[in-house]
């Protein structure tokens, strides 16, 4: 891992979930000190007149006919945008956007789970009213549901030349949005194995998670996220989580229950598995990539493994909810983030896999950000890319079935 990347203050999205749920909001604020908070409108409300874009602004959005609205409402997850290095109450990208286009973005980190957030705007959407947000960011399976329900606006791709040109190919060909005009990938993370090779020896396979071995018996943990645990187990069993079937879920659940009764599994705790890894109570866990890298300072022995069978990857996506009043400006905002220079600035402030082409090249060409291009968390090595597996989309009935079966694994 490059030394120049300081992860001591990084809080990944899922770590935030754990933190806010368990330690309370106050503790989170303390931990997030340098990241600013979502409650203070980061873009400021001074209403200063638009100034010309900085001369370094790299790409002009050509052929755009839409006019910019004075305001834009954007709901996102924690820690998903770059903080202004000079003022940690502001977001640099949004400051730049305002300077260029005069739009004040009301950016709020109000999303901490997909279901709950969508439930909070579903009444307005079904009643044909303004949902209050122009951009929301939700995980791919939720986008599939929203598209199915007709709850999101279709993009005018004319407004979004950078998005069309720069979205990476791996994100295309989604069954639920083959024309790529209902969602724009925002960031991606990975789920694999976090383990302590000094205790377990070097591992390569997901099968270790289900193997009775005195080195990790009673010191293995699975995740409470259904798609992560079932997905990794299906991979271990040689099944394909891209096409999740009820039979596959049954087999995966049976394998996990057997591991539990064999005494392999200490807990299916999810969020706080990192603490058990650090304390040594667990030596082998299903783990989120960002978390494990974040542990480097506390527990240098813990490694993130891209297992032979593959890793699960999930993507959060920007969508425009049905009835949004600033649809045109929302498209321009999303497009703005797809300009490689702008994305490079965002990506330097967070640590996820970017969906935008050309960012890595920008880092490689720069003098002070070369290390970022080497970061496997932001740019998984080429040999890893074929191993990235996205959990297939479930129908509502199947999702209920999967959740019910998985509840047995969690013990509820």
């Amino acid at each position, binding site marked *: 891992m490059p030394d120049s990347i300081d992860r001591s203050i990084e809080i990944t999205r899922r770590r935030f979930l754990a933190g806010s749920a*368990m*330690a*309370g909001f*106050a*503790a989170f604020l303390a931990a997030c000190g340098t990241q600013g908070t979502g409650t203070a409108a980061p873009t400021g409300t001074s209403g200063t007149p638009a100034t010309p874009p900085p001369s370094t602004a790299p790409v002009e959005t050509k052929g755009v006919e839409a006019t910019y609205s004075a305001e834009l409402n954007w709901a996102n997850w924690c820690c998903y945008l770059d903080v202004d290095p000079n003022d940690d109450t502001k977001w640099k990208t949004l400051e730049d956007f305002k300077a260029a286009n005069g739009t004040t973005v009301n950016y709020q980190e109000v999303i901490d*789970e997909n*279901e*709950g957030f969508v*439930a909070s705007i*579903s009444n307005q959407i079904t009643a044909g009213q303004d949902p209050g947000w122009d951009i929301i960011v939700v995980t791919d399976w939720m986008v599939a*549901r929203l598209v199915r*329900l007709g709850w999101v606006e279709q993009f005018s791709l004319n407004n979004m030349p950078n998005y069309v040109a720069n979205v990476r190919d791996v994100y295309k060909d989604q069954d639920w949005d083959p024309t790529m005009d209902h969602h724009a990938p925002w960031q991606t993370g990975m789920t694999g194995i976090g383990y302590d090779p000094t205790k377990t020896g070097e591992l390569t396979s997901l099968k270790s998670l289900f193997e009775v071995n005195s080195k990790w018996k*009673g010191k293995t943990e699975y995740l409470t996220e*259904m798609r992560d645990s079932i997905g990794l187990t299906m991979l271990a069993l040689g099944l394909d989580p891209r096409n999740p079937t009820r039979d596959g879920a049954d087999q995966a659940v049976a394998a996990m229950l057997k591991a*539990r009764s064999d005494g392999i*599994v*200490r*807990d*299916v*705790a999810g969020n*706080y598995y990192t*603490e058990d890894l650090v*304390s*040594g*109570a667990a030596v082998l866990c299903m783990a989120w990539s960002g978390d494990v890298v974040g542990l480097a300072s506390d527990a240098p022995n813990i490694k993130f493994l891209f297992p032979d069978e593959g890793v699960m990857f999930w993507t959060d996506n920007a969508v425009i909810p049905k009835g949004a009043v600033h649809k045109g400006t929302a498209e321009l905002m999303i497009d703005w983030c797809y300009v490689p220079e702008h994305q490079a600035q965002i990506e330097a402030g967070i640590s996820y896999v970017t969906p935008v082409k050309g960012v890595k090249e920008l880092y490689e060409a720069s003098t002070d950000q070369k290390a970022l291009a080497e970061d496997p968390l932001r740019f998984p090595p080429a040999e890893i890319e074929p191993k990235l597996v996205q959990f297939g989309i479930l129908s*509502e009935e199947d999702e*209920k079935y999967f*959740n*019910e079966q998985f*509840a047995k*694994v*969690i*013990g*509820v």
Partner: protein
Amino acid sequence: MQRRRALIPYLLLAPGLLWLLFFFAWPLVQVFVASFWSGSVERGYSFSLSNWVNYPTAIEPVLPHVGRSLLYSATATVLTLLIAYPLAYTIAMRGGRAKNLLLFLIVAPFFTSFLLRTLSWKILLGDSGVIFGPLKDAGLLPPEFRVLATPMAVVAGITYNFLPFMTLPIYVALEKVDFRLVEAARDLYAGPWRRQGTVVGAIVGGGLVAGLALAFGWSPAIPTILAALVGAIIGRFLISEAFVRVTFPLSLPGVFAGSLLTFIPAMGDYVNAEFLGNPDSRMLGNVIQNRFLTQNDFPEASALSFILMGGILVIVMIYTRVLGTDQLTQSRV
């Protein structure tokens, strides 16, 4: 003037009643209605009385969790009582000038969040933490020994978190005991100790631990013998006849209130089982949380909530009948 006077009680009641109406009664009605729904988030819900089947459908697969909730909260209630009573007794009878400080110390943990307190137990009980680390290093415990992620940790967490709820009511009851009654009892030949104290103490201590061992599947022999020994010593040297005849009966209202304040919230608790337990020790509260927030199965979650409430109500009614405050104050003293 008269009429205005008549209105005063209602005016005084109004804020409380309105509060209860909006924030207790109305949500309760909503949850009750939801328990007769069928449907889903996407398709919408419809109400029908024929959906009473939600109740048996919801409860049938989670009967083990109901059993665990009962076992853990009952155990924790007994443990809090055993810890809280001597604590409250010492503060009330021997606190002297330090009384207020000691009471403050009991309430002090409440100045931090419930979640933080529970999480700090993860550190205390850690497999190689401050308690078990040194013991393991000294070879007194096997290296694979752990308390976290077992029922023991869940019960310990509940016991700790609810200790003040047991201590304070008992303290208040003991504080009110007129010590002249104890002196009078002594004058009437209530001895400083009881001959049968040794036997009763041994039976109570040993029985309690044997029961726990049976319920949690430990090997019972050694802990039971140890507990019987401790019980015998306490019964022989610490429990006086005056205490059994006067002080304890007078403090029973505090015990009664404390047990309810501990047992009822403990039954619905899910935080301790979530953070300190593992899949084998989840309680009914965890199931309800999962049905509401993960599965979005509002009808089943609502049905389970009502079953839990009903169950607690029945238990409390039986308890009140057996150990009601009225009987305590009227007949036994």
